[in-house]
């Protein structure tokens, strides 16, 4: 019984938010042109998933997101660990990364399109690039917050550089890295969508853009809700993995 209640609580919170939306859209606080009623959104969602292109668009976006995220994690952890353990790497590459980081995808994409052409691979690399930062930063942070005592333990055992990374640095940084990968997952979804908008690739991004241009608010919100659902499911899976990996934290 208690379990059931606690399982329903999150749904209750969500329902309350939905209720707020319903009241706001029906009470005339928001113009229906911009914010549709929940019913209208659901109708659009239903239609879009069953007959429209929403399902294929979502599948394309999910694929882009997952691939981009995988690449981002790989890049972020490798570069982050490199910067975390090696002062040389820090001196050589960190400034470049810090310079590139604040460049908005929206402004860089057109350049990338001009140089590399307009291909899915190009968009994918932009996604990976954009989503890499949270992983990279938290990996560096994870290494930096390592207590000196453990570095000394490693020094006393004369662990090789790679053994230090894999046996001390990365496990210690794991909670931070996992938090980073969770952020990166969201960012890669967002950048995938932005990329689809700017580089005109099939997917939810393009669907959202066209819906917004055509002032089809219910389609726009259906797309947004679908994005939320994609983000939620992927995040929940990641949270599950996180709990398994961080067992030692809650003995």
């Amino acid at each position, binding site marked *: 019984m208690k379990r059931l209640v606690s399982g329903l609580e999150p749904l209750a919170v969500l329902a309350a938010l939905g209720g707020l939306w319903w009241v706001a859209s029906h009470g005339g606080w928001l113009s229906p*042109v911009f914010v549709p009623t929940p019913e209208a959104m659901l109708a659009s969602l239903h239609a879009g998933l069953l007959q429209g292109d929403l399902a294929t668009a979502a599948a394309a976006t999910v694929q882009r997101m997952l691939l981009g995220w995988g690449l981002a994690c790989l890049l972020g952890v490798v570069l982050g660990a490199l910067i975390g353990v090696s002062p040389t790497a820090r001196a050589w590459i960190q400034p470049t990364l810090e310079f590139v980081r604040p460049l908005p995808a929206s402004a860089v994409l*057109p350049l990338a*399109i*001009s140089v590399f*052409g*307009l291909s899915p691979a190009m968009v994918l690399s932009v996604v990976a690039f954009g989503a890499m930062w949270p992983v990279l930063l938290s990996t560096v942070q994870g290494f930096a917050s390592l207590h000196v005592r453990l570095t000394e333990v490693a020094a006393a055992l004369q662990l090789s550089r790679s053994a230090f990374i894999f046996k001390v640095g990365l496990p210690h940084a794991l909670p931070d890295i996992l938090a980073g990968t969770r952020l990166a997952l969201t960012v890669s979804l967002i950048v995938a969508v932005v990329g689809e908008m700017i580089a005109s690739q099939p997917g939810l991004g393009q669907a959202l853009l*066209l819906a917004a241009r*055509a*002032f089809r608010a219910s389609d726009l919100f259906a797309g947004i809700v679908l994005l939320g659902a994609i983000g939620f499911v992927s995040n929940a899976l990641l949270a599950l993995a996180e709990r398994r990996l961080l067992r030692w934290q809650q003995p």
Partner: protein
Amino acid sequence: QAPTRVNVGFTAVADFVTLFIAREEGYFAARGLEVATTFIPLNPSMPAAVQSDSLQIGGATPSVFLQAVDGGLDHVVIGGGGMTSKSVTGVAFVARAGSGIRSAQDCVGKRIGVPGLGAYLHVAFRAWLRQSGVDHTKVNFVEAAFPQHADLLRGGSFDGVVTADPFLSRIVASGVGYVASYYTTFQPEGMPTILYTARRDWAERNAAAVKAFRESLVQAATFLREPKNDAKVRAHMGKYIKLPPEVLATMQINPPSPVIQERQLQYWVDAMREQAMLKTTPDVARLIVR
């Protein structure tokens, strides 16, 4: 009586030239209108800016305006910018060198770049395809901004682009592509390319200002038609649209259409309905304020 203040949004196309003339020649001021202008990079933001009262008047393309109305925004047309003309060859469908595209039929299954999906040039291009008996859903349209057209053609990402000057002439000159069709010349003459739009409630409350605005545009149109004013016109335009002087000097300017007739709007409604871009059938009579 204090002058009415209006903020008018424009994009970087020559169809706004009557707006620039009316402001620079003092036609607005003479009618008690204090007009400010804001450059809006992307035309689709125009209706939202008008709705939120950041702009009182927005220069939207017909497709943007009609989609906004279709979506439920209560906006109206109070005047017009340029209109189509068979003599204008500043817009064309350019095919990549070696692609072998010559006709509308050759476009089937190809990747064609357009400056905006659902935007003015795209709608017009699809209308041309239809007119030539080609199903536009069989053509693969991809959106890309004008300045990228040359690079994307060269890199082989696109088989053709729907583009406009000065990019058009540069692409052709560099040999990356060739003009497959000046497709806009197949369009009927005199169809508006830019509509000045406002919120209905604003237009009703400021009927005098709306009238003054349109009359200023008419006066500017007269000024524009006078060939001796050409240098002045281009100088005015250069103040608003920052283009290299050589581009400015040779740019083709669509003839003006300051007053919009129902049949002009109806042309676009029909074209867009044929392309399934509208859910409703807007009543054009209600959309134009006189």
